[in-house]
């Protein structure tokens, strides 16, 4: 567990040795040698998990698409011929007929209802959605697991208090809270991330709490305590590494949830403020104009959203398969 290894260093499984190249005796020896080597340099938990993850085809395809979408968000702007606010006056009034995706005039994805370049806007929307989703998702899980660890480790009053806060948070309808917050404190990306963390801070809390509760009674924690380590050090050095897998799995579930939440709120029109945009806002605009036959305005953002969510779903699935001991 303490020294993670790269797959190159790990000896191959004995079964995978080519059998035809060796005679029966040598093959036997080779297998024995491999087994012995494996005993010396045992695979760490993380190397093992990485192996399983890399073997999961759907998860790898998911990773590929997510990387593509990230590249699109990072460098897609370079290829945009217009900026997100610029109105193409030459197309105004005939968006329906001539505003579609077009390679000659530089509107790769067509233009939106107001004649703004949709490609530039999708790049911008992808940036906002990914930023909000990843930042809010990761931070929420971190906060949730810290509180979960505290609740599980100390128990008693502290636990009761945190669990009460947990239950109250869960019983507040989040859409309502979100709308109220945005109405009061303005609609910026920062406020959005903030309110999502406030709503989602419980992510992963219950499961880390349970993990810590079982881990804290194990011998190695007793030993650490006998050596006089402080609570903080015990949690950070001895308990946290042993439940990191739970946190990783939970993060992978929370990020698409956060992206979805952001999109839903933007869809309602109380999310990100114009001229900035996000997937949800773009889908909403596209949905409101689809009656006029300008379908590309709905399809491009919806496609990005769907591909991203499918990919993240399979990545999360692959991580769970790779990391969860129950799945093995």
């Amino acid at each position: 567990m303490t020294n993670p290894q790269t797959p190159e260093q790990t000896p191959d499984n004995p079964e995978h040795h080519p059998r035809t190249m060796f005679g029966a005796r040598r093959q036997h020896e080779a297998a024995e040698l491999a087994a012995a080597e494996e005993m010396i340099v045992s695979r760490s938990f993380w190397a093992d998990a990485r192996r399983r993850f890399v073997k999961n085809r759907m998860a790898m395809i998911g990773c590929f698409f997510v990387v593509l979408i990230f590249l699109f968000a990072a460098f897609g702007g370079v290829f945009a011929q217009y900026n997100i606010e610029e109105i193409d006056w030459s197309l105004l009034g005939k968006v329906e007929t001539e505003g579609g995706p077009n390679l000659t005039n530089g509107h790769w994805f067509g233009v939106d209802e107001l004649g703004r370049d949709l490609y530039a806007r999708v790049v911008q929307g992808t940036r906002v959605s990914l930023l909000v989703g990843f930042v809010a998702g990761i931070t929420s899980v971190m906060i949730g697991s810290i509180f979960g660890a505290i609740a599980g480790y100390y128990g008693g009053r502290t636990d009761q208090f945190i669990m009460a806060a947990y239950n109250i948070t869960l019983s507040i309808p989040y859409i309502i809270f979100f709308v109220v917050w945005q109405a009061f404190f303005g609609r910026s990306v920062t406020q959005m991330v903030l309110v999502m963390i406030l709503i989602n801070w419980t992510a992963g809390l219950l499961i880390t709490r349970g993990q810590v509760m079982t881990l804290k009674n194990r011998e190695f924690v007793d030993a650490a305590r006998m050596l006089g380590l402080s609570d903080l050090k015990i949690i950070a050095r001895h308990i946290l590494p042993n439940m990191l897998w739970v946190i990783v799995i939970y993060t992978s579930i929370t990020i698409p949830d956060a992206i979805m939440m952001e999109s839903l709120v933007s869809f309602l029109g109380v999310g990100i403020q114009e001229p900035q945009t996000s997937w949800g806002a773009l889908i909403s605009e596209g949905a409101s104009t689809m009656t006029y036959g300008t379908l590309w305005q709905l399809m491009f953002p919806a496609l990005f959203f769907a591909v991203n969510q499918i990919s993240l779903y399979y990545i999360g699935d692959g991580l769970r398969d790779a990391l969860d001991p129950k799945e093995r």
Partner: protein
Amino acid sequence: MLQYTFRRTLAVLPTIICLIVICFFLMRLAPGGPFTSERPLPPAIMANVLERYGLDQPLHVQLWTYLKNIFFHFDFGPSFSQRDRDVNDIIAAGFPVTLTYGFWSAVFVLALGIPLGIIAALRQNSLWDYIMTGFAIFSQIFPNFVLAPLMVLTFTLAWGLLPGGGWNGGQWEYVIMPAVALGTSYLANVARITRSSLLEVLGAPYIRTARAKGLAERTILWRHALKPTLLPVISYMSPVFVYMITGSVFIDVFFSTGGIGQSFIDAAYTRDYSVILGLAILYSVLTFVLNLGVDLAYAAIDPKVRSGLK
């Protein structure tokens, strides 16, 4: 059982009061208000307006009056932006609409989700099972705000079968799409839960006993397996019911059904504090009540919980 009900109900009250107080102060702390506009009102008129709505009084007095009106007169106060209406009117106009499609959506989720789950469990690894799993993944990836436009695209624009929005007094054609769009993702979850729960129950020793004594599969399913199968489904129903109500925010905006969700979003735009507050309270109270109801139903059905309460 009675004691449990009583205790749970009592525990809800302080939470709701807490929530009202927090919302109230959040609202007053936020900069700007329903009367701040680009052209500021003359001070004398502003003072009159504030007095009319009781906003000139100290905060704690305002809070006290607000709470008193809610609990003793069931009055949520006047709307700040719609001069001739108060919050009660807005709720009275929109809430029946929300309840109607929320109810049908819940019916849709249960009436389809449970049988689908049962079929998938009985024919494990069959085509049905795969279709259902695919549907479950699909509904997670296409949340209702993506699904609803696609539905309108198909059923209204392409085939012209159903109206793409509006309410028209709740005629059935107008209810279908909101109810379905609201329920789809939960339908998939209910089916999934039913499936795994039934599979677990069917593996239990008492089902083997029932088979061993020669009962027909149908009797085993209906008499012995169904009730324990539904327990996890029931406990899952509380978030579903809650969502059937809060989801109205999205449904009303997209389908223009005219439920309370639309008023809520409008109020958020115009900073109509009393409407936001009133509706937020309504949503929260409904959430608590529905959660309580589901918990009680669960307690009434599950013998383990029931005996534990005595």
